[in-house]
C-alpha cells in the first residue's frame, strides 16, 4: 500500500487522476474502520488533511461553501447560525472524538443511507462541488446519491466542498437510535421551511436505499400553507395537516428490516419524527414573528 499526502488541491487531483482506485482519507472515521478490519486494502491511500484550502468555509450570496475538510465539531461551533439543520444533525453524530475528525464531505463520499448529514443537506437544498484534473462541476444533492453507498461521482473525482443554501426559515432535525450518542440512525428526518420561496424541504435517512426527499409531503404542506394563508398569518397549524404530513413522509420511505430496526418500525418512527419536526419548526416560525 502506498500513502500519498498532497499539500495542494492540484496535486491531489493529479494523484486521483493517475490512480483512480486510490481511497481518499480525511477524518478516517469510515476508512480506518475498513483498514482495521481488513475489509479495505487499497493500493493507495490519499490523505487530504494537509490541503489547507479544504479546511476553509466561505459565504457567497448567503450560501455557505463548506470545504471538504471542515469537521463536524467546527460545523457546530462556527456555523450553527448559518447552517442550523446541518449543525443539529452534526450534534447527533458519534462522540466528541468522532466529531473532531469526521467531515460532511466524508459522509457524502461514503454515501451510506444512514449518514446523518444527508437529510439536513436534502432539506436545506445543497450542491456537491466535485473536481478532477478535467475540471470542476456541481452536482445537485438530489442527483448525488445513486444507490447504497454509490454516488454520481466519477472515479477520478474528489469532493472539494458542499454548497448549502442560506436558511430563510426554521430548520429541524430528528434522529432515532438506541442512545443519544454513538449510534447509527435507525431512522432520521430533516425539515426546512423556505418562506422566501414558499416551499418546504425534507430529507429521510436510514429508511431507503439512499437518502431521499419526501416530495409528496413537501408539496402537500407547501400547498396547505399557501391556500390557508399560513405563511402570512403564522396561525397554528391544524392537527390534521401535521398528521397528514407525517403520513406522507412515512409513505416516501422504502426501508428494510435489519439489526437496527424493522421496516414497519422505521415507517412509524418517520411519521412521528416528521410530525414533531414540523411542530417544532412551526413553533419557531411563529415565535420569530413575535420577535420581529
Amino acid at each position, binding site marked *: 500500500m502506498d500513502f500519498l499526502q498532497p499539500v495542494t488541491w492540484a496535486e491531489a487531483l493529479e494523484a486521483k487522476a493517475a490512480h483512480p482506485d486510490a481511497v481518499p482519507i480525511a477524518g478516517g472515521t469510515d476508512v480506518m*474502520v475498513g483498514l482495521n478490519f481488513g475489509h479495505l486494502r487499497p493500493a493507495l491511500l490519499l490523505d487530504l488533511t494537509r490541503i489547507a484550502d479544504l479546511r476553509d468555509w466561505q459565504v457567497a450570496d448567503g450560501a455557505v461553501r463548506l470545504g471538504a475538510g471542515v469537521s463536524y465539531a467546527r460545523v457546530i461551533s462556527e456555523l450553527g447560525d448559518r447552517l442550523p439543520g446541518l449543525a443539529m444533525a452534526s450534534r447527533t453524530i458519534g462522540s466528541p472524538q468522532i466529531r473532531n475528525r469526521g467531515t460532511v464531505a466524508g459522509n457524502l463520499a461514503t454515501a451510506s443511507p444512514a449518514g446523518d448529514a444527508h437529510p439536513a443537506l436534502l432539506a436545506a437544498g445543497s450542491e456537491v462541488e466535485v473536481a478532477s484534473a478535467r475540471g470542476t462541476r456541481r452536482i445537485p444533492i438530489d442527483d448525488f446519491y445513486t444507490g447504497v453507498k454509490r454516488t454520481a461521482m466519477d472515479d477520478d473525482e474528489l469532493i472539494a466542498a458542499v454548497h448549502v443554501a442560506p436558511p430563510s426559515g426554521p430548520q429541524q432535525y430528528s434522529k432515532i437510535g438506541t442512545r443519544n450518542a454513538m449510534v447509527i440512525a435507525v431512522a432520521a428526518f430533516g425539515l426546512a421551511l423556505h418562506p422566501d420561496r414558499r416551499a418546504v424541504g425534507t430529507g429521510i435517512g436510514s429508511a431507503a436505499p439512499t437518502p431521499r426527499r419526501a416530495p409528496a409531503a413537501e408539496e402537500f404542506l407547501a400547498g396547505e400553507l399557501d391556500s390557508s394563508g399560513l405563511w402570512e398569518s403564522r396561525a397554528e397549524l391544524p392537527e390534521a395537516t401535521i398528521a397528514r404530513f407525517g403520513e406522507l413522509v412515512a409513505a416516501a420511505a422504502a426501508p428494510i428490516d435489519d439489526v437496527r430496526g424493522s421496516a414497519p418500525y422505521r415507517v412509524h418512527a418517520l411519521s412521528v419524527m416528521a410530525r414533531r419536526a414540523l411542530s417544532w419548526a412551526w413553533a419557531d416560525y411563529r415565535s420569530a414573528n413575535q420577535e420581529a
Partner: protein
Amino acid sequence: MRLTCTVNGTEQHVDDVWEGESLLYVLRERMGLPGSKNACEQGECGSCTVYLDGLPVCACLVAAGQAEGRQIGTVEGLAGPEALHPVQQAFLDAGAVQCGFCTPGLLVATHDLIARHGRPSDAETREALAGNLCRCTGYEKILDAVRLAADRMAEPAAGGDR
C-alpha cells in the same frame, strides 16, 4: 515508511510503519506506549483517546501517516515526574477505576473537558464522555471523579478553604 511526530513533547522516529496501520498501533507496538488501549478499533469505545494537535480523537481512526509532524498527547503524558495529574488522582480517590481498561481514554477525555469547561455541569460531562464506554462502573463513580477533579483543579494552590 518512516514516521516522525512529537509524542508527549518528545520527537519520535519510527521506521517500517505499514501505510495502512493506525496511530494507535504505532503508539502501542512501535513506540512502547501501551497506555492507550485497543478495544473496538472502530471509534466506538474511546479507550484509545489521545490528543492530536490539541483535540481528543480516537487513535485507532488516525492513519499513521496522518500523524506525520503532528503533536500527539497520550495518557502517559498526563502525570508529572512527582505526582499523578489531579484527574488521575481523582479517578483513584473516587473509585472510578475497576478493570481499568477504559480508564486511559476517560482520563484524556476528562482532562480535555476540564481544560475547556473548568467546572462542567453533569450534562456537559455526560456529553463530553459519551464516546467513552465503561462496562464495569455504571459511570456514577466516573461522574464523581470528574466533579472531584474539577473541584480540586479550581481550588487555589495548597487546598484552599472552599
